């Protein structure tokens, strides 16, 4: 049986070049970068090179790059840190209804703890935050705006540069969760006026468990994890040198091939999107038709439920997703789709297919062949499916 991996928004395969780059850091240059000897200097050199590479890709300075244990940690650190450092100015924070739980749940927890006043902006039918809604929500005591770069479920891309511009004009710090965007679409923290930005390596063929928080020079963000003085005292813990080398290698490769990948993957994505629309009646594309990540397809398929579609696909070797990976297996329909105004029963029937540069046309053809049969079979079993 053919195996087709279309869950690249959940995580990606680590590419061979990345594994090859990491291995020496495991077995040869394994020193602790903080120590004072040749092994340490070797590790420190790998670390510095990785930092410079990452900085270059997003238009930052090396000293603005803090390596973390993943996207969730980066988000938590940014949110808690900025709020803690700006208590004197105020405690109002603005975010959107479609953020990843690493942002949304953290802010909601902080609200319950009395640390912040939270404004959660609605999104349009495509899951996009309007620049106007951000502008209108800004207050004198607003200390932080956190709006994701691209959505993990429906792939819609927010007007980040414009939001950044408004925040900068009002002197409010702007954080963006770019975990889904990094390595896939161009990012320039300077031109986009981004003050803090979260990255996670495993979304662009790097390793799991390592991420970045970009912190603009001059922005104060106390440590989330306290201890040793690593990362210029901003993130304690022995640096994950192999993981960081893997992250930087993966990001460098992704950014070098970004344009051609976006084109090739985008074309396959369009074929899949069009194919589904043509072959399956009663489906609805979720997310913006064009302002979306080049690798994301998300459809609601009426009358049937997401998990059973996934199981049928899985039986046929196809790995896909419904709602976000973190909450699958739960009963609640995606908060993203609900925020976009989808009724519950349609939100329950969503299917996310996310491609990578390793996806082949053959795989897309296989999915387009199978999916209509699977949908029909499940619809025939569904009490909601109108009789013909």
């Amino acid at each position: 049986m053919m195996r087709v991996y279309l869950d690249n928004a959940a995580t990606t395969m680590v590419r061979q070049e990345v594994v090859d780059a990491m291995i020496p850091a495991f077995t040869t240059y394994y020193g602790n970068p903080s120590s004072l000897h040749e092994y340490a200097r070797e590790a420190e050199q790998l670390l510095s090179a990785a930092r410079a590479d990452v900085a270059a890709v997003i238009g930052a300075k090396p000293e603005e790059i803090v390596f973390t244990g993943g996207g969730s940690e980066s988000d938590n650190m940014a949110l808690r840190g900025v709020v803690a450092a700006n208590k004197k100015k105020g405690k109002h924070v603005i975010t959107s209804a479609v953020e990843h739980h690493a942002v949304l749940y953290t802010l909601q927890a902080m609200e319950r703890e009395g640390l912040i006043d939270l404004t959660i902006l609605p999104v349009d039918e495509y899951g996009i935050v309007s620049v106007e809604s951000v502008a209108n929500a800004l207050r004198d005591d607003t200390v932080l705006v956190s709006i994701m770069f691209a959505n993990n479920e429906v792939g819609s891309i927010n007007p980040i540069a414009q939001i950044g511009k408004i925040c900068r004009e009002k002197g409010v710090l702007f954080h963006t969760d770019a975990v889904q965007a990094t390595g896939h679409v161009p990012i320039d923290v300077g031109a986009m006026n981004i003050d803090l930005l979260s990255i996670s390596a495993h979304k662009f063929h790097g390793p799991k468990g390592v991420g970045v928080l970009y912190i603009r020079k001059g922005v104060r963000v106390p440590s989330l994890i306290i201890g040793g003085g690593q990362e210029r005292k901003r993130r304690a813990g022995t640096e994950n040198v192999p993981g960081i080398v893997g992250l930087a290698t993966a990001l460098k490769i992704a950014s070098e091939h970004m344009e051609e990948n976006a084109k090739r993957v985008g074309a396959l994505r369009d074929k899949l999107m069009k194919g589904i629309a043509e072959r399956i009646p009663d489906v609805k594309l979720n997310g913006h038709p064009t302002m979306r990540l080049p690798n994301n397809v998300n459809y609601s398929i009426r009358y049937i439920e997401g998990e059973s579609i996934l199981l049928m696909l899985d039986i046929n070797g196809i790995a896909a997703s419904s709602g976000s990976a973190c909450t699958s297996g739960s009963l609640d329909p995606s908060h993203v789709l609900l925020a976009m105004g989808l009724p519950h029963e349609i939100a329950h029937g969503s299917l996310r297919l996310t491609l990578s540069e390793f996806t082949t046309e053959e795989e897309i053809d296989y999915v387009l062949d199978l999916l209509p049969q699977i949908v029909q079979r499940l619809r025939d079993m569904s009490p909601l499916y109108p009789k013909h």
Partner: protein
Amino acid sequence: MYTEKVMDHFKNPRNVGEIENASGTGTVGNAKCGDIMQIFLDIDENEIIRDVKFKTFGCGAAVATSSMATEMIKGKSVNEALSITNAAVVEALEGLPPQKIHCSVLAEEAVKAAIEDYIKKRDAAK
């Protein structure tokens, strides 16, 4: 996540369909929560369940519990069928993940709703 038995009933669900002019039908759950089960009973004059069919909108466990529940009551008397429990369905499926136990409850309720519908119709016809 699912046992082989659950996957077997999901892949090859028994008794899918509808019964025209059923002796009793029951529908439980709602689309908002992501599960709807519909059970159709064909009951003979000796109150034996001659045939049973189901339709389900829901997850793998919803389909499998519907399928298993219909198998368990097929050929049984109405009274026997009324004593079906969700635990028995779970056991017959060799287990369900904790967050899916509610599906077995739904299956029990669907069977009971269909039988109640039959009893109501039967008593009304007397």
